[in-house]
């Protein structure tokens, strides 16, 4: 099991955001997480990434319980085992496309053969450019490339097509699925789109902090 979420709760002040959520994810499996705005999708994803602490319950990634890890161990786990794709791309503006692509992998001490990676992403002729010189779709391809380059066990994608038009969104989604499958990584994808969610192996709907 790559991911195991067991009875997780999270509140902000008096407001309960996540209420006793549990889920599991196997290697190579794709799970789509849907839900209305404010249903807690992103919060759950952030907790799985170790970016947000949980109140109660347990989250375990590749056998490592996040609650047992210090902040630096948590950071190391993210570096080595998790790839994250954000809606806003969140590339590092001061680094070139090539440097962005290899950034996390090199942080994790892994070597990356950039040429085939860039070719598979359709970015072979964009490597020396900076993020601001790319279109939205191209930026999201770089973000996907960065997430998969380190061969993570788990890829978390938070509305990866939310900022893109339908056609570009489809292309990016295809790329994300194929990249995850090529790497044998489990993929948890948060999306509003039922059409895209339908292409996942499984889907779960979150409503007011609980799975329905």
């Amino acid at each position, binding site marked *: 099991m790559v991911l195991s979420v067991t009875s997780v709760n999270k509140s902000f002040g008096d407001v309960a955001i996540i209420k006793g959520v549990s889920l599991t994810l196997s290697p190579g499996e794709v799970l789509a997480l849907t839900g209305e*705005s404010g249903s807690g999708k*992103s919060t759950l994803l952030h907790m799985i990434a170790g*970016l947000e602490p949980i109140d109660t319950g347990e989250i375990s990634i590749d056998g490592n319980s996040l609650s047992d890890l210090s902040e630096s161990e948590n950071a*190391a786990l993210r*570096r*080595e085992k998790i790839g994250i794709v954000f809606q806003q791309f969140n590339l590092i503006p*001061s*680094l070139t496309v090539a440097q962005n692509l290899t950034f996390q992998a090199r942080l994790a001490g892994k070597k990356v053969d950039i040429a085939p990676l860039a070719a598979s992403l359709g970015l072979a002729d964009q490597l020396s450019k900076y993020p601001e010189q790319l279109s939205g779709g191209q930026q999201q391809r770089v973000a996907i490339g960065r997430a998969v380059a380190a061969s993570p066990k788990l890829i978390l994608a938070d509305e990866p097509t939310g900022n893109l038009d339908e056609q570009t969104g489809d292309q990016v989604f295809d790329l994300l699925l194929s990249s995850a499958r090529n790497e044998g990584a489990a993929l948890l994808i948060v999306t509003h789109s039922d059409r895209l969610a339908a292409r996942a192996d499984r889907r779960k709907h979150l409503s007011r902090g609980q799975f329905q």
Partner: protein
Amino acid sequence: MTRTVLLTLLSHWKRRPFQLLTLILGLALATALWSGVQAINTEARKSYDDAANVLGREPFLVSKTGALISNEAFAQLRRNGWLVSPVVDGWLPASDGRVRVLGIDPLTITPSNPAGAAVAEFEISDFLGREGLVLAAPATALRLGNLGMRVRSVEGVAAGMAIMDIEAAQALTNTDGISRLTVLSDQPLVQSALVEVAPDLILEEPDAAADLARLTDSFHLNLTAFGLLSFVVGLFIVNGAVGLAFEQRRSVFRTLRAIGVTTGNLVALLVAELVMFALIAGGLGIGMGYLVAASLLPDVAATLRGLYGATVEGTLTLTPSWWLSGLAIAILGTALAAATSLYQVARLTPLATAQPRAWAMASSRTMRLQLLIAGLALFVATSAGVLGSNLLSGFTLLGGLLIAAALTLPTALVILLKLGQSISSSGPLAQWFWADTRQQIPGLSLALMALLLALSANIGVSTMVGSFRLTFTGWLDQRLASEVYIGAEDEADVEALIAFVTPRVDAVLPIWHTDKDLLGAPGEIYGVVDHETYRENWPLIDAVPNVWDLIRQNEGVLINEQLARRESLKPGDQLPMPGGWNATITGIYSDYGNPLGQAILPLDTLTSRYLDVDRTDFGLRLNPAELPNLRQALTEEFGLPPENIVDQASLKSFSLQIFERTFAVSAALNVLTLSVAAVAILTSLLTLAAMRLPQLAPVWALGISRQTLGMIELARAVVLALLTFILAIPVGLLLAWVLLTVINVEAFGWQLPMTVFPLDWLWLLGLSLVAAGLAGLWPAGRLATRPPADLIKVFAHER
């Protein structure tokens, strides 16, 4: 509507109190140092004016040869219808220096003369005679202390001056005559011609204030330059704060414009807001300026007394004009710092993008523009340096170089950071560090420019002072070659004194002199005997061959460097001497620390040409081991007090003390400017910290802990300070070169060889790294302990 719009604009500051604090602090600091320096200058100039006022604005008669005027000449003039009043002008030792004695005749002086007006407030009978009242300013009265006189404190009498009856003044200063005769303003219609009544006297116009102002102008200009530098450094902070606040409110401005507020209204209200802040910060800055001035004034007063003989009271009198000028400079500074932002608001259209443009992002266009302006500044500076030949052109050169250096800084830093990237580890974090640091340059450039200016000024001034100290020490060794210097109590003792010491020492070297104008400015003429001491040690910087032989043969005059530079004189030229004769210049010598022109004649020529020669001082060459015995013998035989027998080491130490005090003010202003720069860095880093989150959060999400990010942010501040320091070294050395070869020559009349002191830089490097480290510690600490929720907000869809 106006009120609503103004409250809307002001609400920004309520939500960002730290930004408001930055703005107020920057402006207050800028105003403080400027106002402080102005307060000091005003106080000093007031003292010069007071001194001139007490001496009177009336013309006066003096002896053509500089000798004292006899009582007979005075009586003769009065009998022939000349309404003149006698004055004795001399000096009296007092605690912490000396006091100028002004002896007047209360019976003939009129109240139109300021000294006469001061005396008129007392009973004449109390003032008359040796035991009469002595009038002095309160601080001077304290300094006169236990001289056994009836001293009265009188407001309005110039600092460092004591007014007394002429008889008392003659007794105190051992003067047997009259220094000058004041020509009263109301003269009878008929009076005999001066040439018939007193052919030995000439009529002169008063110009004491002008003389003192001219002598001290350079010193005050230097202080003003430092004040201006601090002001500019402070404005960098203000510019940053105003620029950021305007950027953050762009959406508000756009909305206000869209709902019907005109550009004129918007700009007017923003100006009103800024004026309000300027007045608050100006008031605060003036208060801080008072504290700066009060703490620096004693050092300034000591410097002016030591270097120029000018007396400045150690207390501040603050005038309404000073307060108003402080507020005006605060408003002017705000206007300068906010001009660009206001211009942008004036051009804003309601359809303009609400997204803050990348305020902190560098555009290569901005850097190109900065380089262009730097080139222009360099051109102006070079032109001023090549074409100009006065103090103003010197400061234009200096200012132009500093502006050019500051504007070139961002580009230079980018190049250095690229270089750093190419030679550092190729790890992803290192790559990100260098690339991201490069991207921070525009946001930090104003603060870094401020740091560059402060560091350059520090290196420049310390190199100048260090070079000066080294040269001065070597020069003292040459100039003070005699083992001991004697000052006789009375000229009557001199002959006996010389007769007494001659068999006991290797040589007696008279140091006799007279104060005379040289080419229209106050000067000194000394007389020397021919002796190997001079031949071997005198610090000549240019001379004809066999210069000392010519002096021995009464065929020349030596002049000091400042007189030579001021009047463009060189060996071989003719120097018009007081008394209407010419002497051929045979040599020029360095004479550091002396603001006056000086000439050296053979002793016989001095005494035969001038009657008012002070013959009380001389130097003695002897085996230093004999000095204690000689000192004891002189004390027993002539009752010479210890302060009249000064050995070489004491004199050198005293001279160096004056030297150190002279530059104490520069050192203090240096530290203050550096502190302002440190505040500029701190405020910039804190301002940028909030804007940096979108760049740092992804790196955190990719697996770098907040603590590591905090340490990287700290390292970034230190690396930028280090690189700025490296760039400040050549700028500082250039500054030192300009100070030594241009400003010093124009201001003081002497040129100094430049010496570099790399060890001093280490201290400064440590100081700047600590300053940058401390400035970076706060934002870095805040980042390291920032709740993850803040960082996650960056990824929120609704952001």
